[in-house]
Each structure stands twice: as structure tokens, then as C-alpha cells.
């Protein structure tokens, strides 16, 4: 009997299987079960040292967020959206943009395939072939964002459910399509019509860029909002609004806000008047949007201020209390009306009024205040310190408005151009880096402007070491400097005398894609020359290398141009820049040094008129000629002197004498007397002869034709006398 009983309960325990499972065990929960395993002891009981304490509540992602907060920025790494590989880390703005957008394009293509061939992704994996497939998504739990999106066209059979789906997902174009397919206005319930109207008004019947495409949104350089009426007059929204009978308060709110958002100010105000006359209540946000476009109704500051005050009074009549949005739209209107003392006073009054009812200005309010007070050519007004004092006190900055993202870039611009205050800029940057505030930086365009201002102000006003530190952390992974900022940086490095960093700056120019900008390269060469004297030998060598590289880069660019690989014509370095290169490269005592090759190349370019203008400092070439002669490169010396004489510089005379004296190992007096007699010259070495000819050329102001012939003879002699 007993054995029978035990089989009734039927424990299926297969020893072997069980053992295998044991080894796979993942975690062991000792349940809080009592002996019977039925009751869990209530944790509410006082801590008896045995039962577990009350569970600390946490959301599903709280632990992940806590872990993520332990990871700080890594200045050596690129943004995590790029591959961490030297071949694939983008170093210029162009590459950053194209790499990120390429990745996104891939994602978009995948999404397209998913949507077009949705049937391929909705089957059970284990359905045998031939069997009728059961529509079923393998994904579990089902994630809407990953599921194929329905495609609506003229043939689709749609129901109200589809319409609701499009409305809930803000698919404006699809919603319009489904609306048409459903049969227009008459086929819809009032409720759906209302929702549809709201959607249309919010987006002005234009499809917004989906939230899914982060990179596209990040790199979409939105130009400043144009304050022009873009509202579609007589569009779908209008027709739906007219079809609604009776018109509810919600409908009025939706259409007025839509019109006000897209600057159809007059009609918005007319409708608002109409609603108020009919006794239809309007919401606070309607008044906010009306306030933000009140300036379009009137001309002249006083009238506009009057209109603004009337609106606020009307708001009071309706029994509505203002919120933060009201404050920022008041300031938005005021700041849009220009500057001037009166408007500034009004703005301050408004802020004070709102503060008295306990409404602190948000980031967008501060942004408008900065716009109003810190005009480019206006007097210097330091309201930023007060603003920062206030913001630093707040625990975290909560984004409330799309214009919030304008605050940091504008404030940094004020630090850099208006106040020129590095300590304020540093405070502001610290605020941006605090907590989650970095998301307020906006998009790629704003971010780069922000850093442009920050680095500029830092280059101009910060101590040198601090600037270097900043440059190291930001460049190139966070920010790639634009040419104007690069020039600031070069200036700062030059002033700080950091030769090694200047030499690096050249490779940075190449990497950032600025190496074709002649102005910048010339500026860099100037900086090289100015700093060169007091550098260590090692750094001097580096600078020489960089200078030589600049020359080589120019040649390569020209070669490319010849092969038609370049789209825009290559600008050529000026003669002054060439002289700088020559000066730098010639500072070697070794005859066999590579620098001399560079010097001769640069001289060739100068002589073949491949450099714009004439050198600003011809005496440099004279020195180089002498040095070349001393070292034992007479060809170069001759070329330098020849060029000087061709250009007709006075220095050519003294230079040729000095060079000849070195070449012939005579005193300058002897050389001069020697030069008087032209018949003696034929006995000279060809290079010396060239120098002598140059001397005479300058003396006699020889014609262009002769100079041409002299160049040809020069090139002949060069080939034969390299080893002298």
C-alpha cells in the first residue's frame, strides 16, 4: 500500500539528468520559506537579525545607471559610436560626420529591409517548410521599436485601428494617408478628429525626423529658426478645424498653438479673440504661444509692450496662472524686438515679477536675457555671473524647452566675445559637465560652436599650462578646431614658445584637413620662424622636419591637381612662406643633411614663379646663400643669389659679394675688385660665375630676357656641379 501511495505522487527524478542540471545552476536562491515552504516571513517585522531587511526600491534600469555613472570621460578615446581602432577613429569634422552618418545609413537600410519584407521577420523559426506559416514574432518580449512598421499606400485596407496607430506614433504623413483612405472628415469620430488636429497643428503637417535616427538629428545643422509664417493656410488642419462642430475648447487651443508656433500670428490672435468672446476657456500654453508671437502684430516697442501687457491681463481675467513657459515666451518676445535700455528694463521687471510669484527663470529664459543684454557691439553688461550663481545652486538642470539647448552656447559666446572672462568660462564648462547636463549641449553644430568659443577664450586669456591641458583633453576626440580656432591656437603656442607643440600642430593641420588652407600654413610657418631661435636642438630638428613636410605636402597636392584628383584648385604658398621654409631648413651644418634638398626644392619653386608674391625678408635668402656656400653647397647659394637678383632686391649685391668671398676664400674687398672686371670671370667655377652674373645683373638692372637665359644656364650648371 505504501509503495503504491508513493508512486501516486510521482516524483520524476532522473538522477543523471538532475546531476547535469546541478552543474548548470546559475544562482541559488535560498527562499525565505518556512519549513513548509508556504509562508514567507514578513519583512515588516523588526530586525530580528534573521529575516532580511526591507527591500530598497529601485527601477529596472537604476543599477545600470549607477554603474554607468562610474565611467568618466576618456580623452584618448573617440566617442563610443565610432570603432575603437586607429584605422577607424575619425580625426576631422568631415570624417566624424561621414562615419557616424554612414553607420546610421546602414541602420536605415536595415530598417527599410525590415519594413519592406516584414513577412520574413514574423515567422516561427520552427515552422516546417511548406506548412502554412503562422504569423508570429520571434521576439519575446515584443518591442515595438524593433518590429516592422506598417506601410500605407493607396491600396492598403485601413481601419480606425491603423489611424490610431499612426496618431499614437506621430507618423504625420501616414496619418494623412490613412485619413484620406478612411474617407476624410466625415468618417471620423470627434475624438479622433481632435487627436488628428492636434498632431497636424504640432508638426504643421510636416513629417518630423524620427527619434530613431540619433546621428541624423545630431548632425542636422539647423540654421537659426526663421521667424516667418510657415503655417499652411487653408491646409488640412484648417479644414478639420472648420469641420468640427461645435468647436471645443481643445480644438481652439490646438489650432491657436499651431498657428502661433509657425508664426501665423494675426490669425492666431483673431481666433483667440473669437474664442474669448464666445466664452471658450483657453489654456496657459495657448497664452504662452500667443505671447511669444505678439510682436508680429504691432510695430514699435511701446505698442508691442502694451500688447504684451494686455495679453497678460487677459490671462489673469481668464483665471490662469502663469508658468515658466509664460516667462520664457515673454522674454522671447522682448528679446526679439531688438535692444535698448527700455526693453532691458521691461525684461528685468518681468523677471522680478515672476520671481515674486515663485517662478525661477529656466535656461531658455536666461538665454533670451543673454541675447537681450549682451549685444555684440553693446556696452559690457555682466549678467552672466548672476545667472551662473543661480544655476550653480540648482541641483540639476531639467530641460523644459527646445531653446534650452541654446543657453550654453550663447553663454560661452558671451564669455568669449562679450566679457572675455576665462574664469566665467571655466565655471560654465564645469556646470555643463556636471551630472547629466551635457545633454543640454544641443547638437553637433552647437557643440562645436560652444568649444570654439571656449578654446578661443582660453587661448586668449588663460594661463599657458591650463590652455595646453584643455587642448589635450578636447582635441581631437571631443572637438576638432576650425581654421579660425586653429589660428588662435597657433598664436597662443607661438606666444608661449612651445616649439614642439607647434611642430605637432602641422601634423594636426594635416589630420584635421586644414593643410590646404594657405593662410593657416603661412601663419604656422611664421610661428615656426619666430620661435625657432630659442628652442632645443631636438625640437629645432622637429620644426625643420615639419617645415620640410609642408613643402612636400604642397608638391603632392599639386601633383594630385595635375592628375585631376582635386576638385578645388590648390592654393600655393606665398614667397614669404617659402623663404621661411628655406630659412628653417637651411639651419644645418651638415652638408649631406636632407634640409639642403628641401632648400633647393623651395628655391626652385621660388625661381620658377610658383610662389605668390615676393619674400618679405630677402635678407634671409642672402644669409642662406652665405651659409650654403660655407657648408659647401654652392649650387644652392648660387640659386639663392640668383633669385634675389631676378627679383631685383638690393640685397643681391651684398649677398653675391659675401657669397663669392666665401666661395673663393677671399676677402670681400678682393671680391669686389675682382667683380669689376668682367673678363676675369670666365675663369671662375660655373656656380661662382652664376653668382657673379647675378651681381652684375642687379648692378646693371638687366633685362628680363637676360635673366631668363641666366636661369637656363643655371640649371645646366647645377646638373654638372652637384659634387663640387
Amino acid at each position: 500500500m505504501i509503495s503504491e501511495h508513493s508512486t501516486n505522487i510521482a516524483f520524476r527524478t532522473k538522477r543523471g539528468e538532475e546531476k547535469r542540471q546541478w552543474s548548470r545552476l546559475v544562482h541559488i536562491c535560498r527562499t525565505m520559506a518556512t519549513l513548509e515552504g508556504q509562508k514567507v516571513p514578513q519583512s515588516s517585522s523588526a530586525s530580528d537579525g534573521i529575516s532580511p531587511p526591507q527591500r530598497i526600491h529601485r527601477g529596472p534600469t537604476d543599477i545600470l545607471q549607477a554603474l554607468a555613472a562610474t565611467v568618466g570621460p576618456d580623452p584618448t578615446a573617440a566617442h563610443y559610436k565610432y570603432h575603437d581602432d586607429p584605422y577607424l577613429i575619425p580625426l576631422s569634422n568631415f570624417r566624424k560626420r561621414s562615419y557616424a552618418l554612414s553607420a546610421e545609413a546602414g541602420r536605415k537600410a536595415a530598417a527599410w529591409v525590415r519594413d519592406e519584407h516584414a513577412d520574413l521577420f514574423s515567422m516561427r523559426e520552427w515552422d516546417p517548410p511548406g506548412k502554412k506559416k503562422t504569423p508570429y514574432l520571434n521576439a519575446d518580449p515584443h518591442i515595438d521599436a524593433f518590429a516592422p512598421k506598417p506601410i500605407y499606400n493607396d491600396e492598403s485596407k485601413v481601419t480606425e485601428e491603423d489611424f490610431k496607430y499612426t496618431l499614437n506614433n506621430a507618423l504625420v504623413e501616414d496619418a494623412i494617408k490613412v485619413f484620406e483612405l478612411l474617407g476624410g472628415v466625415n468618417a471620423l469620430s470627434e475624438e479622433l478628429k481632435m487627436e488628428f488636429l492636434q498632431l497636424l497643428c504640432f508638426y504643421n503637417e510636416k513629417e518630423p525626423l524620427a527619434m530613431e535616427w540619433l546621428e541624423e538629428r545630431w548632425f542636422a545643422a539647423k540654421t537659426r529658426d526663421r521667424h516667418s509664417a510657415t503655417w499652411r493656410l487653408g491646409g488640412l488642419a484648417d479644414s478639420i478645424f472648420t469641420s468640427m462642430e461645435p468647436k471645443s475648447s481643445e480644438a481652439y487651443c490646438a489650432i491657436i498653438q499651431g498657428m502661433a508656433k509657425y508664426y501665423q500670428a494675426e490669425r492666431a490672435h483673431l481666433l483667440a479673440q473669437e474664442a474669448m468672446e464666445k466664452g471658450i476657456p483657453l489654456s496657459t500654453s495657448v497664452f504662452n504661444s500667443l505671447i511669444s508671437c505678439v510682436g508680429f502684430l504691432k510695430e514699435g516697442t511701446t505698442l508691442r509692450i502694451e500688447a504684451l501687457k494686455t495679453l497678460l491681463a487677459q490671462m489673469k481675467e481668464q483665471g490662469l496662472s502663469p508658468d515658466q513657459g509664460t516667462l520664457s515666451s515673454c522674454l522671447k518676445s522682448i528679446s526679439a524686438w531688438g535692444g535698448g535700455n527700455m526693453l532691458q528694463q521691461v525684461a528685468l521687471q518681468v523677471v522680478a515679477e515672476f520671481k515674486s510669484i515663485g517662478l525661477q527663470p529656466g535656461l531658455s529664459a536666461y538665454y533670451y536675457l543673454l541675447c537681450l543684454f549682451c549685444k555684440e557691439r553693446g556696452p559690457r553688461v555682466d549678467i552672466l555671473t548672476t545667472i551662473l550663481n543661480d544655476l550653480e545652486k540648482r541641483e540639476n538642470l531639467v530641460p523644459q524647452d527646445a531653446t534650452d539647448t541654446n543657453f550654453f552656447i550663447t553663454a560661452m559666446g558671451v564669455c568669449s566675445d562679450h566679457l572675455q572672462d576665462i574664469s566665467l568660462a571655466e565655471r560654465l564648462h564645469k556646470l555643463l559637465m556636471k551630472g547629466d547636463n551635457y545633454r543640454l549641449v544641443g547638437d553637433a553644430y552647437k557643440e562645436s560652436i560652444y568649444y570654439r568659443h571656449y578654446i578661443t577664450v582660453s587661448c586668449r586669456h588663460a594661463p599657458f599650462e591650463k590652455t595646453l591641458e584643455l587642448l589635450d583633453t578636447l582635441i581631437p576626440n571631443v572637438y576638432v578646431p576650425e581654421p579660425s580656432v586653429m589660428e588662435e591656437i597657433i598664436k597662443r603656442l607661438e606666444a608661449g614658445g612651445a616649439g614642439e607643440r607647434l611642430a605637432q600642430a602641422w601634423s594636426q593641420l594635416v589630420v584635421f584637413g586644414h593643410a590646404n588652407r594657405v593662410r593657416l600654413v603661412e601663419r604656422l610657418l611664421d610661428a615656426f620662424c619666430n620661435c625657432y631661435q630659442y628652442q632645443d636642438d631636438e625640437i629645432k630638428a622637429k620644426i625643420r622636419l615639419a617645415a620640410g613636410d609642408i613643402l612636400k605636402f604642397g608638391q603632392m597636392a599639386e601633383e594630385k591637381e595635375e592628375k585631376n584628383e582635386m576638385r578645388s584648385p590648390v592654393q600655393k604658398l606665398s614667397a614669404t612662406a617659402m623663404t621661411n621654409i628655406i630659412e628653417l631648413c637651411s639651419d644645418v651644418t651638415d652638408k649631406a643633411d636632407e634640409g639642403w634638398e628641401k632648400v633647393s626644392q623651395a628655391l626652385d619653386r621660388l625661381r620658377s614663379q610658383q610662389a605668390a608674391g615676393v619674400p618679405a625678408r630677402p635678407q634671409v635668402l642672402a644669409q642662406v646663400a652665405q651659409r650654403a656656400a660655407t657648408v659647401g653647397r654652392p649650387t644652392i647659394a648660387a640659386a639663392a643669389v640668383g633669385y634675389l637678383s631676378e627679383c631685383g632686391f638690393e640685397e643681391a649685391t651684398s649677398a653675391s659679394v659675401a657669397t663669392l668671398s666665401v666661395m673663393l676664400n677671399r676677402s670681400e674687398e678682393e671680391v669686389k675688385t675682382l667683380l669689376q672686371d668682367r673678363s676675369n670671370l670666365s675663369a671662375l667655377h660655373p656656380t661662382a660665375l652664376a653668382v657673379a652674373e647675378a651681381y652684375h645683373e642687379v648692378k646693371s638692372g638687366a633685362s628680363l630676357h637676360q635673366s631668363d637665359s641666366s636661369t637656363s644656364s643655371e640649371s645646366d650648371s647645377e646638373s654638372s656641379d652637384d659634387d663640387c
Partner: protein
Amino acid sequence: MSVFIKYNKPGSIGNIFNVQVLWRFNSTTAETMRKEEDEEFRVLDIMKKRDRQQKRTARKINIQPDRADRMPTDQNWGNVWPGPKTFHPSSVPLPIRQGYVPKGQAPPGKKANAELMKIPNFLHLTPPAIKTQCEAIKKYCTEWPKLLNSEDAIEKHYPVEVITSDYCHASPTIRNPLARIVNLRVKLSTLNLDKHAKDKFLRLVGDCYDEKTDFVTFVSDRCPMRKQNLDYVNYLLTACYHESWNVEDWEKEKCEDDMEYYIWDNNASKKSLVNWHLRCNNQEINLTDDEYKNYDISGISNASGYKEAVSSLMNDGENEDTVKNYGSAVRKLLGLPERKLTQC
């Protein structure tokens, strides 16, 4: 599919060693010999096409130096390598080498080394990183109950263990059917059972009891959800426990054949011992069964040893020890001399 493995017994480490052996077999051996036979098949090139092709030079790609070179020595490594990822030589500033090579050669360096990419690395789990992460999630942890300070205390207060498995997939679904299986185990000694109840309990659970570890284990995979299986194993434990305390009428009919183990007092062996003892003392033999059962054998010299020897022989089965014990007990009982060692 990856499975998080965590088990409270240290024995599972053995697996890891096995895996390492596997890796070594998989690893590519360094190329020791390279046959250099550059003799190409010559092609008659009439149009001189090859020359034209050769002119096309490969585009120069300027690669930036490894970012490992730029890393300061006092950087926070957790920021550089925050999560698990495949080894990458340009971001790891360590001169690592790995690979199987013949004796006397150095293993290949970190660049272009597939061996380093194959193995899972723990660069994201450096001690400082673990420390900061622990600090970060500490705010969600509650204090450990003070009296549960040892394994024994835990076993005493929480005798029931429930064991389940979670699986982590890279696939559209996060479900795994194996996750529904629930093991519940409890030590038999922690259950409050008397002799009868214990006997009945063991008969009820059958194979679920492991004598060696004293664990009673219930495994359930019959329901589709873990919650249901958990409920079911809890029900099983409860039902078995309470059922084992019930005494049914028919249980009185249990006879010697139904006994789960040998009780010497109830058996013929005691009867014969008592009879033998009485006969030796020339006493009369007319005892009832109950009197036989309750007869006090302490009066008989060496009887307790004999009882134990017989019980163990019957309960533990015949083996060299029990038989030997039995033999010596009988010798003692009968007063025979000890078996001599030479005889065996």
C-alpha cells in the same frame, strides 16, 4: 548563448581547466617553416599591360599612432575599458604576448594576434573598477541579517534551498525554456519527524532522498512557468511532510516483511540468544513474543556486541567487515578464543 555560471561548491572550477586545455589545442601554432618558392609562372605580356597596372600605386593611408601611447600612467583604466569587449591592441597599453610556439621562441606580441582576441579578457574587471562599481550599487543593498553570520546559521534558519537558472541570450527572445525548472532541496535532518514519520516520509519521496548528503530534492519542470513550478515543489514538500505524520489504520498491519530495516529485538536472532541463555542457566523457556522483545539482554555478557554485529550484518549487508565483526562477536559471546592471525 552564454550562461552565467555560479555555484556554491568549489568543485566546478575543474571545468575551467578543461576549457584551457581545449584552447591550447585550438591555438594556431606559429609558422616555423616558410617555403620560399617565388618562382612565378611567366606570362607573355604582349600589350605590356602589366607595366601600366603596376603604375597604380597604393594610396597611402596615414594611420594615427595607437592611443595606448598617449595614455597617461595615472589614468583611470575604468574609463578606458568600461565594459567587456574583445581585446584590441591599440587601446591596451600592456606588452602582452600570447600564442603557442615551439620551445625557445617568444610568443607573438599583441598586434594582429588572434589568440588574444579569442580568449575572453577581464580587462573591465580590474580591482579598482570592481571597487567603484560596488560602491556605486551599494545604495541599493540592504544590510545582511546579523545573526546569519555562518553557513550553519543560514542552514538552521533557512533550511529550504530553491535553485533556479537564468539564461542570457543574444537572440530575439529572452526566454529560455530551461529557466522554468525549479529545484527545491532540504536536509532531512532539519525536518521535524519522528521515527514513524521519517520512515513514511522516506517511502513517500523515494528516489528524491540522497542518503549521502541527507538532502531531499524536489525537481519540477512540468509547468510552463517558474512560478508554477515553484508553487508545485512547495506543495510537494508540504504534502509529503504532513502525510508522513498521518497514521492510517492499515499501517498497523505492517509485518516483519514490510520492515524497512532489521530490528534485532523483533527477530529470531534475539529469540535464539535468549533461549540459549536461559538454557545455559537451566531456566524454563516459556516466553511470549512481547516478553522476548522486551527481554533485557544486559544480563548476558557480550550480548550487546552480538546484537550490534547482527544488526549491522543485516542492515549494511554482507561484507568483509560485518562478517568479521559478526564472527568475533559470536566468539566473544560463546567464550571461544580469538582467531589467530596466522590462520588467516
